[in-house]
């Protein structure tokens, strides 16, 4: 009986922390509520008030249930369960304003859009995007911004103590860099960096909007939304034509700069902002990203030129390279129409961009995909393996990588990189099979699956409200699994299965 009570208390402690995360998300909803008040959107004032009340109620129930056990030290599995549970319940609750708005055909579509935003993917199910309310748009982009940094990371900012449990939850959200001693300090450092860039990026994007011909008010609003989406490598835009809507080279360039920087590791930002600028050239992730981006861009450009798709420099750069770097950083901003990928790009360019989407940005960043760190480690390990057979047998060479500091390449690093990349590949295969099952071609299914698996958001035109429910649910699960890098969600699943089997 005592063992049972202990286990019961631990479950309630997990629920307590999930409740804290949900309460922080509910508090964040005050921003779109205030936006709707300022914009005079009466209907949306009610939509947000009702949703906010329900979210706070759910959070309060969980916090009150678990408050007695909050002092328990969470183990790694429980930290992961907090992260994955918070993301799942967060999706269900954050979808309420969408569901009440009338802009979604079903609650499932609303959940899809929330998961897409929170995981910074950017494929959507919204109806009539071009006439969405200002408040609801603010909620979409705010969710992307919060999801990019991490909702658990945001909740940690408000904790007062650097507890061991805090670190376990931080790791559960697929962020394992310690920028500072303690998870709470690290979370605060991550948000300081993001807010610093928000100030700079908002100003630049608003200026670019005015230059592109937008009225000042629209330029300011679109500026903050596009920055939040770009920095978080999200891919949502306030207009259905995405970045193509602005028809401006300057606007495209500004987005390119911010989403590229947004895909960098927070440990890299932290090192560079503290004065170690050489890190930009030496870090294994920037080196790996530069090499893979160059090779894949060259391959895509070759494929596009072979098909005569973009025959001049301006078109090849603004259409070809823009989609390529947008895919590789897992942003998903588009300056072409979705069906152009399928009808114009050709197999070679589609192959290159699909690989780029799977490779993704940096670890501990807002980006998705395998991550540059793992690509770098795998290539280093392959190099070391080849050297082992080409050098004299008595010669021992230690392979090192540079990531903020010089580190020896260990078996554990290589093992972990291969495990996670394998899980990404399995997920990609499942997503592709689901697309095929829904009647799409192999190229379409693989492209869209890579986009969901890499949390990218580029679309070839597969994702739509007309999709069968099983495909929507598959993509939701893929986005959730991939964003949390599998282990948290798998741990939560294993814990639930074990509980059921024990009964």
């Amino acid at each position, binding site marked *: 009986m005592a063992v049972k009570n202990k286990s019961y208390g631990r479950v309630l402690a997990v629920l307590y922390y999930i409740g804290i995360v949900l309460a922080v998300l509910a508090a964040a909803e005050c921003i779109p509520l205030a936006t709707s008040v300022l914009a005079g959107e009466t209907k949306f004032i009610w939509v947000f008030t009702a949703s906010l009340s329900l979210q706070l109620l759910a959070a309060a129930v969980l916090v009150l249930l678990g408050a007695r056990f909050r002092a328990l030290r969470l183990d790694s599995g429980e930290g992961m369960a907090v992260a994955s549970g918070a993301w799942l319940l967060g999706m269900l609750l954050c979808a309420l304003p969408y569901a009440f708005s009338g802009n979604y055909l079903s609650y499932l579509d609303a959940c899809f859009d929330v998961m897409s935003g929170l995981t910074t993917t950017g494929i959507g199910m919204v109806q009539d995007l071009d006439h969405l309310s200002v408040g609801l748009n603010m909620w979409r982009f705010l969710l992307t911004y919060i999801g990019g940094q991490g909702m658990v990371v945001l909740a940690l900012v408000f904790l007062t103590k650097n507890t061991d449990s805090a670190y376990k939850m931080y790791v559960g959200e697929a962020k394992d860099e310690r920028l500072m001693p303690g998870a709470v300090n690290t979370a605060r450092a991550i948000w300081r960096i993001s807010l610093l860039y928000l100030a700079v990026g908002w100003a630049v994007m608003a200026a670019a909007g005015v230059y592109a011909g937008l009225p000042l008010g629209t330029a300011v609003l679109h500026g903050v939304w596009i920055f939040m989406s770009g920095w978080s490598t999200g891919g949502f835009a306030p207009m259905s034509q995405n970045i193509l809507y602005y028809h401006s080279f300057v606007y495209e360039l500004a987005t390119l700069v911010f989403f590229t920087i947004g895909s960098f590791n927070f440990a890299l930002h932290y090192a560079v*902002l503290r004065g170690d600028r050489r890190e930009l050239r030496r870090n294994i992730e920037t080196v790996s990203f530069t090499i893979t981006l*160059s090779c894949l*861009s060259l391959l895509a*450009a070759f494929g596009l030129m072979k098909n005569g798709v973009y025959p001049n420099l301006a078109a090849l750069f603004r259409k070809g390279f823009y989609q390529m770097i947008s895919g590789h950083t897992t942003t998903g901003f588009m300056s072409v129409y979705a069906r152009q990928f399928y009808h114009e790009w050709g197999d070679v360019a589609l192959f290159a961009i699909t690989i780029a989407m799977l490779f993704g940005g940096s670890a501990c960043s807002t980006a998705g995909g395998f991550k540059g760190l793992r690509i770098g480690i795998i290539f280093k390990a392959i190099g070391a393996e080849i050297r082992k057979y080409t050098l004299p047998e008595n010669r021992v060479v230690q392979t090192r990588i540079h990531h903020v500091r010089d580190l020896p390449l260990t078996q554990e690093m290589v093992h972990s990189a291969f495990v996670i990349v394998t899980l990404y590949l399995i997920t990609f295969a499942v997503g592709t099979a689901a697309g095929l099952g829904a009647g799409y071609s192999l190229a379409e299914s693989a492209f869209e699956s890579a986009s969901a698996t890499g949390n990218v958001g580029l679309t070839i035109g597969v994702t739509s409200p007309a999709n069968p429910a099983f495909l929507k649910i598959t993509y939701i699960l893929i986005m959730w699994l991939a964003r949390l890098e599998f282990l948290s969600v798998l741990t939560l699943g294993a814990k639930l299965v074990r509980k059921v089997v024990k009964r």
Partner: protein
Amino acid sequence: MTRKILNTAAGLTAELVFAGALIAAGYLISFLTVG
């Protein structure tokens, strides 16, 4: 404090320049392919 602000400003500039260099590389690749 001044040193911290200067470091942050220099770091921001360095990241912007690095991102600019990556974009310039993309422009060069496009240029060479078209050429």
